[in-house]
């Protein structure tokens, strides 16, 4: 398929096949007349979408500015919003935490051995930033930001990439004036010209080369996840094939962990199944950053196992904010009361917390999520 770019946005195409009635079935033999009969029909299915319905879902934005809502936001406002909503994954300066996407820097690295593809170094259009933040961010709480918030965060991301000054304000009015530095370096798929011909033709079948050397081995890199269970099955099958006894040695990874102490029969925490089930749903708001349950480990936030009775800031190896470290020094403990107050308004209750979550408005939700965390994270 040889599509060519007419300009940076508009791809010139062959005429649509709107009138086509004899489109070949994709991968089956079918009588053509049956297909044609169906193609000719209109089915009078569905109903007209209302203006409000279209407005509710149609939030997409294009490079030419189509779809931008009225609004504005400046770099300084964006910084505050970014620190609260984005920095825990993307880092204070867009440098990223762990394997979350790097958002800033990387200019001039695209030809390097290890290119750093960021908004500033790689993304061709600013509209992509606005559209994506607007539709999908913050991770785990999508579409919770106002239009002005998104303008402000987008402005701040430009600032982090040294593309605007700190007094810059972005709005629907000046949006399309901002051009991204890497815009010109994208070109349409040219495999049809460059590769399809090069990789078509006669192949050698006999005496194609004199010598073959191994030049690289995955075993040296050694990053493949181990699968002890599958390996044991193979060893048993191999042993059976040789007519010998199956190996009795069980791979260490497969050995069952020591059985946990049996919970008391009248365990109150696990008692209210309905509340716990309701809490599981509420917990969806938390799980982008927190894990709870068997094998839970720290994510963006600390794991929540054994939270009831745990000292605030008490997970070894997790880097807490100053307010949590102070609370830990004071011996503050998580229980129904403290957790409830924290979840109702995290930023007021623990001023300076890194947790960006705005809080749960309903007490029912707070009670449910605490019940769920306690039931799931019982140690």
């Amino acid at each position, binding site marked *: 398929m040889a599509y060519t770019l007419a300009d940076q946005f508009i791809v010139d195409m062959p005429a649509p096949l709107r009138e086509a009635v004899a*489109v070949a079935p994709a991968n*089956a033999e079918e009588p053509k007349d049956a297909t044609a009969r169906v193609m000719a029909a209109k089915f009078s299915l569905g109903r007209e979408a209302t203006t409000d319905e*279209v407005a509710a879902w149609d939030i997409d934005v294009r490079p030419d500015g189509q779809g931008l809502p009225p609004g504005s936001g400046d770099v300084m406002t964006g910084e505050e919003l970014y620190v609260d909503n984005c920095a825990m994954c993307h880092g204070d300066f867009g440098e990223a935490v762990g394997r979350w996407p790097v958002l800033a820097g990387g200019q001039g690295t695209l030809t390097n051995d290890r290119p750093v593809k960021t908004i500033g170094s790689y993304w061709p*259009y600013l509209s992509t930033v606005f559209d994506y933040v607007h539709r999908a961010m913050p991770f785990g709480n999508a579409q919770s930001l106002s239009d002005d918030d998104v303008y402000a965060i987008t402005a701040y991301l430009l600032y982090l990439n040294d593309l605007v000054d700190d007094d810059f304000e972005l709005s629907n009015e000046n949006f399309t004036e901002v051009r991204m530095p890497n815009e010109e370096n*994208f070109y349409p798929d040219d495999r049809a010209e460059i590769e399809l011909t090069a990789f078509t033709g006669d192949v050698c079948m006999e005496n194609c080369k004199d010598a*073959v050397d191994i030049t690289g081995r*995955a075993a040296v890199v050694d990053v*493949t996840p181990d699968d002890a269970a599958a390996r044991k099955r193979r060893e048993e099958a*191999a042993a059976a094939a040789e007519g010998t006894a199956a190996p009795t040695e069980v791979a260490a990874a497969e050995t069952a962990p020591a059985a946990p102490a049996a919970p008391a029969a009248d365990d109150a925490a696990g008692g209210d199944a309905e509340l716990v089930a309701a809490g599981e749903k509420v917990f969806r708001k938390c799980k982008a950053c927190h894990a709870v349950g068997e094998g839970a480990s720290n994510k963006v936030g600390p794991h929540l196992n054994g939270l009831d009775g745990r000292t605030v800031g008490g997970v070894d190896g997790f880097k807490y904010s100053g307010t949590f470290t102070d609370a830990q020094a004071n011996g503050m403990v998580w229980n129904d009361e403290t957790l409830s107050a924290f979840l109702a308004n995290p930023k007021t209750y623990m001023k300076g917390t890194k947790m960006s979550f705005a809080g749960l408005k309903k007490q029912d939700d707070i009670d449910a999520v605490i019940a769920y965390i306690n039931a799931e994270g019982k140690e």
Partner: protein
Amino acid sequence: AGDPAITEMQPWNQMLGDGVDANPYGKPSHYEAHVKRRSVEWLTADPVSSVNFTPLHELDGIITPNGLAFERHHGGIADVDPAKHRLMINGLVDKPLVFTMQDIMRFPRENRVYFLECAANSGMEWRGAQLNGCQFTHGMIHNVMYTGVPLRYILEEAGVKTNGKWIMPEGADASGMTRSIPIEKALDDCLVAFKMNGEALRPEQGYPLRLVVPGWEGNMWVKWLRRIEVGDQPWHHREETSKYTDLMENGKARRFTWEMDCKSVITNPSPQAPILHTKGHTVLTGVAWSGRGTIPRVDVTLDGGKNWHQARMDGPSLDKSMHRFYFEFDWDGSPLLLQSRAHDSTGYVQPTKAQLREIRGVNSIYHNNAIQTWYVNEKGIAENVEIS
């Protein structure tokens, strides 16, 4: 004297098994518990936006069982209530429309078998042999039969305006997945599918509704499909700019690289599936596919490409579907360097890693369809290697 499997009574020879309804929704034998999708933990920041891999080395034929079809999502598995699911068509149409699932089911349906391959399949192998197992090197693919409505029927209900050149499907999940697709493809063979292998789509595959874009990169097959907008230009959204563009050595990047190139891999033997017997007759098998057609031929080498043999194709040969090949031979117990080389119906031949790297460098991440090499030692143990 004799094999105790024969001479001794086994429990299942004597005792009754479970009755019907022991598993109202059946599942595989517990002896097959190791056959499962698996992920590579270090690959992504979080399992909610991640990928796992189809265990190709445990499968045969061409159909992937629904529970083993690899998963890739960007905001977790959306738990969509079909009664509250809607499909909206808007933009450059005569009349914007809304369909319920019931409405969708009233259109004429088609059944088609297609492979879905992530454009990043084998992406970890660009710089060198890295992962030991075809599940990890090639497992971002599945091949199922879809039941769905041709997208053109639905678009024609709304009436695409003459300047409608592109569509933008959008997902209902928290990532709001969007891609731009040219109208020619939309009106050609795309389906709006609700069944896979006869049953409802699995939640992780977009229940209750997904787009099927035959032969094109898996990211475009928008899951939890809730809206299709018609426009006169592409949208250049995140998944077609910052992702799914192919960075070349000169720092420029290809975009809109939609078609999946012809590709194959030997699934057995492979690092997770060594040869379990000593020398003698053995069965080599694998899969091949092309986003541009069918696979009439696959060549196999046992000596690292000095000599090649035509494999035996078996099973249905369907357009833009996976194909199965076999090569049976007498193994003399000496080490092997195995490769497969697929030819598609356009005459294209699967390239070597060296050929691909010469054109694309090693920074492109996506669309690595190069020939894979497995080294098999005298004990039958297989390893992912690169050769000269």
